[in-house]
């Protein structure tokens, strides 16, 4: 794909073209579908990865919930690249793709992502209009039906954490949720990639209550963080969202967990403030390399504990 690079930040048009290209070049491993349209009418491309086979269980992974978190979509692209390049060479990746499907949504909040390239690099929310105000957008990660708008979210459309007019009021979150609901029997893990502060979180964020398989999730998170740190010694904190950072309702990880997906994790990638949302391109490769180790660990665990 002209202009696309895995160790650079790519704009949306380049990413969209890349999704078509990677599917066309790897028809035995990758296929592309559209799961909906954004508020501004852009198609939401989803890549399905895995060696053809029937009745395969799947892992869903999304990137780019918050528009300004550019390292997040960069990771989803990196993951797809690694999958196609190492299939048949790396035994873990080969087994994963032989036995599981991965659904990869490279950018959830596409309109917002475009806006960060064209208008305001620091934009965070979606770009939908809110009735009765000039303030634009909803925080997509406060827009899911998981304790929706009860704690750690705002009812004000002008707020950066606006929960929206209703759960799944955003076309993007609705499309994502609809897809997962329609494939609930096969999706066994949900991973969502964010970008700030080196965390590996799991449910719950909307309550201090611990999930029934807390011990298992905590142990997976501990091991995955260790795997991640093994490459560049990047130190991740892990734990349930509410106690590890703060109470916040309406997150996609909590929602996915409550749908019955018992392995649900949120990654907050590299950087604890030195660069914030402006992680230099030179750090895309090491960030993605280390994150890939953790994702592969979790995927392999899920494969060994299918339910």
């Amino acid at each position, binding site marked *: 794909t002209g202009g696309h690079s895995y160790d650079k*930040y790519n704009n949306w048009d380049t990413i969209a073209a890349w999704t078509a290209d990677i599917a066309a070049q790897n028809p035995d491993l990758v296929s592309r579908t559209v799961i909906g349209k954004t508020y501004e009418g852009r198609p939401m491309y989803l890549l399905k990865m895995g060696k053809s086979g029937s009745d395969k269980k799947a892992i869903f992974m999304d990137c780019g919930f918050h528009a300004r978190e550019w390292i997040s979509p960069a990771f989803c692209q990196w993951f797809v690249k690694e999958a196609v390049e190492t299939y048949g060479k790396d035994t873990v990746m080969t087994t994963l793709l032989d036995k599981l499907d991965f659904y990869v949504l490279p950018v959830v909040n596409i309109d917002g992502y475009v806006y960060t390239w064209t208008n305001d690099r620091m934009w965070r929310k979606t770009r939908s209009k809110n009735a009765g105000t000039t303030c634009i957008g909803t925080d997509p990660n406060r827009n899911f039906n998981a304790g929706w708008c009860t704690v750690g979210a705002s009812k004000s459309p002008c707020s*950066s954490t606006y929960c929206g007019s209703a759960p799944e009021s955003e076309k993007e979150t609705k499309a994502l949720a609809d897809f997962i609901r329609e494939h609930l029997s096969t999706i066994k893990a949900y991973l969502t990639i964010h970008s700030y502060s080196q965390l590996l979180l799991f449910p719950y964020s909307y309550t201090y209550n611990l999930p029934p398989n807390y011990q298992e999730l905590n142990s997976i998170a501990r091991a995955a963080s260790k795997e991640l740190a093994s490459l560049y010694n990047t130190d991740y904190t892990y734990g349930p969202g509410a106690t590890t950072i703060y109470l916040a309702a309406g997150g996609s990880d909590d929602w996915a967990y409550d749908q019955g997906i018992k392995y649900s994790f949120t990654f907050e990638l590299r950087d604890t*403030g030195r660069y*914030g949302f402006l992680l230099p391109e030179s750090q895309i490769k090491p960030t993605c390399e280390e994150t890939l180790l953790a994702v592969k660990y979790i995927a392999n665990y899920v494969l060994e504990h299918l339910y």
Partner: protein
Amino acid sequence: GPSFDGQKVFRVVPQNDEQVEILNFLASITEVDFWQPDSVTLVRPKMQVDFRVEAEKSFEVEDLLKENGMEYQVLIENLQAALDAQFDSRTR
């Protein structure tokens, strides 16, 4: 898009409710973009808080923090420079 020239990103760790209130006050009198946590309403004592302020307000913000005895760190001195540095200049 807008220029981020001179915009700063601050880090503070409010030690008590009073210092949390100061951040709330700050957010009420000027535009503050919270990087971590996502919003001022999530700020609690002892929590690391990173936020961005407009260039013309940055000295005012520093004064307010100093006047109230809040220790702070400037994480990013000039956001525009950080923004330019995110791209690999050798190829762009």
